């Protein structure tokens, strides 16, 4: 199967407009006869479901949670980017496009990114119209803040709960359509497989997680909006249920999987506290607007801190190493995530980590508290030299901006971040890789689409902060609902999809067989035992820095672990009941395959780019070294029976508008 990106011809800035005007449409009357399945209800899935239903399609939407409102987009904290230029600081569609391409280390598709920047402004308008309560200034207008890797303030936010507010907006739009009967919502349902009939996606097999019933659902198109696969690392900032299964099942049915090794390790997460740890918690990148990252300059101070003999607040200014400001004076604490994460690892590896495990750095708000406090004292005509007053006023400002994040930190770590610096360390957060899609967001299976984090298209090798929300909603509200019509226009005479077709029967039988085999294995190890082991291999050998030896070991280790899993896993209970362990077993089984492909992809890409850092490819200063001559392409993997046998297809990346340069934030 050849890779056809279907990027429209013409100048970059006209591509989307021209494409939209020329693609095929489905008439309102015909839309009523067409069914579309959407799997997942995060920003992409919920917004796509609502918009498709508004257009008149019959939508069936599935989520594994007890309500569509729980999808993990809800946990996004910091904000959403849009090229509104409300601050008048020189922002534009082009600049957002340029920042995203550069931030992605020149490994994303130019046309897709430009489209993303174009529709970004519509998203904000749409959300405000829905009643999303974004932060506003005293004049009643929308407020903005700045995120990593950019020099403008284009991020819209709702305190540290932007994802929640945007998702509830999309959820409300869905609710309106559920009420109208245009969306049929299936909560607590897991997609178990894709059904392909005559080369086209024609439905899915699901399992009702409450009673275990296996069901068939037919449709004229299937949209996968199931999010990313960060949980392959076991510990990540993803939700416990986040999984790759929907994406992996379609991969096994013919959809290429692109750039699996592009993973975002987020620099500011709460460090691991012990072996019991089940997940990691992010502290929003927005905190780097006001927080300064540092470790002690002197190793003696590090030791004293670890022994509890010294407090960070007792270390004098000249004995602190603000290493991001030192290494990257132009962007300082707001360098992109991959750069900030590697810099934290570099300091901790050198022995300067500030907690017991040696894997933590400080994120300090003391300077911001004084700065805001003095400003407030000045505004209110109070004494700017009264340190206690300034601190109090400054803390109030910081509380208004980041109150919920500070509270979360305090509950988890049991320390007050208003008084002492936060301790943070990088953690797996987002996956830029995902199902390969063309410009229309269709996978290599006709009629099967992938949107949001589940696809690979917009972020290249590193995603900029506040761009995930933008992409999810761009795909769901403004891109897919139009591009899908181009395909469905040929399907107006197909009629209802017959789920008694042998392909449905075959897929259902295979699903049932796998479930039965899980509960009948009756081995000695729990599902989590395998998930933790897999996570450790991934973190140690496919984490923030990677090398040939480690990656080869990872491939062998994961394969061995997978074989052991099928022999020795213990899944209690039966297939016909509410059985969380059984659901988890299916998800971990898929992670055990994806992990191997991940390592294989990382091994093949011998350059460093974005979040993918190969130790063999770095500058003398330790910065990532790209190899544009050999690697300016998307790796799209075709399933060939086993992850290690996957076949590589290369989609060459052409840059018409942008000059490919070394990414520098110095």
């Amino acid at each position: 199967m050849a890779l056809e990106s279907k990027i429209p011809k013409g100048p970059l800035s006209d591509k989307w407009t021209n494409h939209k005007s020329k693609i095929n449409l489905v008439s309102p009357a015909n839309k009523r006869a067409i069914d579309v399945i959407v799997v997942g209800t995060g920003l992409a899935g919920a917004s796509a479901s609502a918009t498709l239903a508004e257009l008149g399609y019959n939508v069936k939407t599935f989520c594994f949670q007890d309500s569509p409102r729980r999808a993990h987009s809800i946990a996004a904290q910091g904000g959403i980017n849009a090229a509104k230029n409300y601050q008048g600081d020189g922002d534009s569609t082009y600049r957002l496009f340029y920042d995203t391409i550069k931030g992605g280390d020149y490994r994303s598709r130019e046309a897709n990114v430009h489209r993303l920047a174009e529709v970004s402004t519509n998203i904000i308008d749409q959300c405000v119209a829905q009643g999303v309560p974004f932060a506003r200034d005293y004049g009643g207008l929308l407020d903005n803040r700045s995120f990593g890797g950019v020099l403008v303030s284009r991020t819209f936010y709702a305190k540290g709960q932007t994802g929640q507010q945007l998702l509830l907006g999309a959820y409300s739009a869905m609710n309106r359509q559920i009420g109208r009967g245009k969306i049929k919502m299936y909560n607590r349902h897991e997609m178990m497989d894709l059904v392909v009939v005559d080369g086209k996606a024609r439905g899915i097999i699901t399992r009702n997680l409450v009673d275990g019933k296996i069901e068939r659902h037919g449709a004229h198109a299937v949209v996968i909006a199931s999010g990313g696969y960060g949980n392959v690392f076991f510990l990540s900032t993803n939700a416990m249920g986040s999984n790759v299964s929907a994406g992996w099942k379609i991969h096994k049915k013919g959809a290429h999987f692109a750039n699996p090794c592009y993973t975002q390790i987020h620099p500011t997460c709460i460090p691991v506290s012990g072996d019991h740890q089940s997940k990691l918690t992010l502290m929003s990148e927005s905190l780097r607007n006001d927080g300064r990252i540092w470790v002690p300059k002197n190793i003696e101070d590090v030791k004293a801190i670890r022994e509890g003999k010294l407090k960070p607040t007792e270390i004098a200014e000249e004995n602190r190493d603000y290493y991001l400001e030192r290494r990257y004076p132009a962007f300082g604490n707001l360098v992109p995530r991959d750069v900030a994460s590697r810099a934290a690892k570099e300091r901790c590896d050198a022995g300067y980590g500030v907690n017991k495990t040696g894997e933590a750095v400080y994120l300090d708000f003391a300077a911001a508290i004084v700065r805001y406090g003095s400003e407030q004292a000045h505004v209110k005509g109070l004494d700017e030299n009264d340190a206690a007053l300034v601190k109090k006023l400054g803390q109030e400002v910081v509380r208004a901006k980041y109150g919920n994040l500070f509270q979360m930190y305090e509950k988890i770590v049991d320390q007050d971040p208003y008084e002492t610096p936060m301790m943070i360390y990088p953690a797996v957060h987002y996956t830029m890789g995902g199902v390969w899609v063309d410009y229309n967001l269709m996978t290599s299976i006709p009629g099967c689409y992938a949107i949001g984090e589940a696809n690979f298209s917009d972020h290249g090798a590193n995603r900029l902060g506040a761009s995930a929300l933008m992409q999810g909603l761009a795909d769901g509200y403004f891109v897919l609902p139009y591009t899908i019509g181009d395909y469905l226009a040929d399907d107006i005479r197909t009629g209802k999809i017959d789920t008694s077709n042998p392909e449905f029967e075959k897929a259902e039988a295979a699903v049932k067989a796998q479930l039965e085999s899980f509960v009948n294995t009756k081995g000695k190890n729990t599902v989590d035992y395998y998930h933790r082991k897999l996570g450790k291999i991934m973190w140690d050998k496919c984490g923030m820095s990677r090398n040939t030896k480690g990656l080869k070991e990872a491939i062998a280790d994961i394969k061995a672990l997978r074989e052991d899993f099928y022999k020795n896993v213990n899944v209690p209970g039966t297939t016909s009941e509410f059985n969380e362990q059984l659901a988890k077993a299916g998800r971990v089984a898929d992670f055990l395959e994806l992990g191997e492909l991940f390592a294989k992809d990382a091994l093949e890409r011998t350059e460093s780019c974005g979040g993918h850092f190969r130790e063999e490819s770095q500058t003398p200063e330790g910065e990532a070294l790209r190899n544009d001559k050999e690697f300016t392409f998307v790796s799209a993997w075709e399933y060939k029976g086993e992850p290690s046998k996957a076949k590589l297809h290369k989609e060459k990346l052409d840059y018409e508008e942008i000059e490919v340069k070394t990414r520098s934030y110095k």
Partner: protein
Amino acid sequence: MNLTLKVWRQANAEAKGIMETYPIADVSPDMSFLEMMDVLNEQLMGQGVDPIAFDHDCREGICGMCSMFINGEAHGPDRLVTTCQLHMRKFKDGDTITIEPFRAQAFPVIKDLTVDRSAFDRVQQAGGFVSVNTSGNTQDANSIPIDKHDADKAFDAATCIGCGACVASCKNASAMLFVSAKVSQYALLPQGKVEATDRVMNMVKQMDEEGFGNCTNTGACEVECPKGISLENIARMNREYLYASLKG
């Protein structure tokens, strides 16, 4: 620390439930409550006992999926947190902890500590939205300035995570705090005002049909709400409802 857990076990919606007692040893104070439950489940599976079913997902206090009635309180003894953000340092060695599902007629038990809260979704479907289609031609987001105080109040109401702690804490199993939070969010914003009358009537009607009880202003909901949703919202919804009823 070592603890004794008394946990509600119920095989399915129809089965009769009972409290079972499980000892658990070596609990770290840094664990979250759900991590402690994970450890217990690993222990139970080792003994051939069916693990305890409980809802959870984001484990950072925002998705609203975790529930649990711990020692007689929704989300346990800590304030302004969900069960997933409750840490074991709030308990002490030798404690006995009672863990039950959120109980309400409108929230039937699915299994053990897992309940069905889809009634909340149906209340939202009855009117918890602004009727605006996605077009790409919506007016500019800054064309209507909104008083910062109103915007902030709308945001505070909108932070409800739909966990159901208010219902579980209320002696009448009333959903007024939940419903009023959504009604208030929209009532405070110009975008929501157009449909305010229909919204409040339809949502309240659906709330009653789902079998939630009446509000008697006890205020337990506000105390137990992990997001600190204020009782003011209930007052605002009552005003909105009265106005809508008079308007007819």
